[in-house]
C-alpha cells in the first residue's frame, strides 16, 4: 500500500515548501563554489604538473557531484530524523495513525532522495555549463547521485534513530563523512594512497559512487566494473534500510 508512505513524503514536501530558499545555499551554491574554487584555481596548478589524463576540473566535478549527494543525504538524515523522535516527535505522531514504520522510513527517505536529486540535477547543469561533461552517459550521473544518497541516507537513518545524544553526530561526521569526502577519490585518485587507506576508500560507499559518476561524465571505465559498484551501493542501501526500520521499531516501542 503506497498511500501512508506517500503521506509521509508529502508531509516533508509541505515543510520543504517553507524552507527551500534557505537550503539552496548549502545544497547547491556551496558545491558549485567548491567546484569553481578547486577546479579552476587548484586545477591550474595540477594541470601544469600534468599528473592526470584529464583536466583537473573535469576530474573533480563528478566526484563533487557524488560527495554533494553524500552531504545532503547525511544532512537530511541526521537532525531531522533525530528531531522526529526527540523534539518534534513527528514519528510518534505518525505512530498513532495507520502509518507503519516502513511507511515512515520509506516516505522520509523518499523525500531525502528528492532533495539529493534536485541538487544533483542543478549541479549537473552547472557542470555542463563549464564544459565538464564529456560523454553521452552524463545524465546517468543523476541516478548515480540518488543511489549514493540512498546508500548513505538509509544507514544514517538507522544511526540517528539509535543515538540518544546529539553529540554523536559529531562522531559520525569526524569518523565517516569527512574522511570519506577527503579520501574516497573525490579530489585525487585513490591509487596514490597507501594500501590501508585505499581499503578504507573501497569500503566507503562514496568511492563507488565517485567511480560511477566519473565514468558517466567522462566516458571512462570504472575500477571494478559498473555492476560491481552498483551492487555494492545496493548492499549499503538494503542493509541500511533494514537496519533503519529495525531501529525505528525499537525506538518507538514502549
Amino acid at each position, binding site marked *: 500500500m503506497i498511500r501512508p508512505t506517500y503521506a*509521509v513524503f508529502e*508531509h516533508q514536501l*509541505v*515543510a520543504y515548501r517553507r524552507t527551500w530558499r534557505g537550503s539552496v545555499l548549502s545544497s547547491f551554491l556551496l558545491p558549485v563554489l567548491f567546484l569553481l574554487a578547486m577546479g579552476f584555481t587548484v586545477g591550474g596548478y595540477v594541470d601544469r604538473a600534468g599528473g592526470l589524463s584529464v583536466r583537473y576540473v573535469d576530474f573533480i566535478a563528478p566526484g563533487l557531484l557524488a560527495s554533494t549527494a553524500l552531504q545532503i543525504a547525511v544532512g537530511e538524515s541526521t537532525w531531522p530524523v533525530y528531531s522526529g523522535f526527540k523534539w518534534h516527535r513527528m514519528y*510518534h505522531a*505518525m505512530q*498513532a495513525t495507520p502509518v*507503519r514504520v516502513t511507511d515512515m522510513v520509506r516516505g522520509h527517505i523518499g523525500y531525502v532522495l528528492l532533495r539529493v536529486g534536485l541538487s544533483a540535477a542543478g549541479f549537473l547543469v552547472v557542470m555542463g555549463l563549464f564544459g565538464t561533461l564529456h560523454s553521452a552517459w552524463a545524465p546517468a550521473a543523476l541516478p548515480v547521485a540518488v543511489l549514493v544518497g540512498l546508500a548513505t541516507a538509509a544507514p544514517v537513518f538507522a544511526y540517528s534513530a539509535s543515538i540518544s545524544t546529539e553529540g554523536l553526530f559529531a562522531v559520525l561526521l569526524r569518523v565517516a563523512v569527512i574522511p570519506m569526502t577527503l579520501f574516497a577519490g573525490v579530489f585525487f585518485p585513490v591509487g596514490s594512497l597507501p594500501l590501508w587507506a585505499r581499503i578504507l576508500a573501497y569500503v566507503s560507499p562514496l568511492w563507488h559512487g565517485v567511480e560511477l559518476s566519473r565514468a558517466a561524465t567522462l566516458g571512462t571505465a570504472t575500477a571494478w566494473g559498473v555492476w560491481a559498484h552498483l551492487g555494492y551501493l545496493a548492499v549499503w542501501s538494503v542493509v541500511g534500510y533494514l537496519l533503519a526500520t529495525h531501529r525505528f521499531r525499537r525506538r518507538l516501542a*514502549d
Partner: protein
Amino acid sequence: MSVAEPLIAAHGLVKRFGDFTAVAGIDLEVRAGEAFGFLGPNGAGKSSTMRMIGCVSPPTGGTLRVLGMDPVRAGSAIRARLGVCPQQDSLDPELTVRENLIVYARYFGIPRKVARQRADELIEFVQLTERADDTVEPLSGGMKRRLTIARALVNEPAIVLLDEPTTGLDPQARHLVWERLFQLKQRGVTLVLTTHYMDEAEQLCDRLVVMDGGKIVAEGSPRQLIERYSTREVVELRFAEAALDTYVGKLEGIGERLELLPDRILLYAADGDLAVAAVADRALRPSSVLVRRSGLEDVFLHLTGRTLVD
C-alpha cells in the same frame, strides 16, 4: 461487532518493562458514548494502559479488544478509527496550524479536499481561526493542546484517547480545553482520558477507575465513588501551636475518619459544622478551619493513603 459489545474490553491486562510492572492485571470495559477516565498519580500505569489501547505498545499479558479487534494483529485498522491526543506535544512546529491538520489527515488516507474542509471546521471548533495560517512554534501551550485535540478529531474517530489533556496548562487554558471536550461528549463522542486532576475527572467523566501501582483500586461514577469511599463533608484543620500529630488523639471520635497530612488534618463527617462545633467543645484552637464537600481527592486519599498531586 454487535451494538452491545464494548468499544474497549480488557481482562487481566498486564504491561511489564523488564522487571518493572507498569500495569498489573486490570479489567475494564468502555461503552460507546461514554466519557471514561483513568485517575491516578504519576506512575500509576495510566499512560501505559492508554498506549496499549492506542495500539502502539503491545500488552505483555491478558486480553485486550479495541473496537472488537485485537490491537496486536489489527493495530493499523484500529488506529485508523482512533483519535489520539498524547501527553507530549507532537505537532510540527514549522508548519502552520492548518497544515498540521491537513498533513495529519493525509496519514489516514483522507483525500486532500476533504482534509482541507475538515481542517477548517476543526480550527473553528477549537477556536484557532485567527491563528490558522500562523506557524505552530510561537503558539501558547493551551493553543497547542487545542490544536492537538483538533488533530485527534481529523479522522472522525470512534474513540478519542486523551492522555493528561490539560497537564501543564494554566487555569484559563484548562477551562477552554474542558469546554471543548464537554462539547464532544455532548455530541456522543466516546472519550477515554487520563488525569491526575480531580476536578477534571469530576467535570468530564461519566465513569472512572482509580489506578494506583498498576492496579485498579476503585471504579464507578465520580458521585458513586465519593459516596462509597468518603463522607459528605470534610473539615480541614490547621494548627499553629503544636506539632500536628499531637492533635490526632485529641480529635478522636469526631466525625467518621481522620487523615493526617503534613500541613493539615482532615476530619471526614456527614455534617461538617457539627464536627467543627465538636472541635470547639474540646477547647482545641485550630489556626484555620475549612468545611467543604467531599471530592475525588478524598476518595483517592482514602484508597491509597496518599494525595494525588504532591
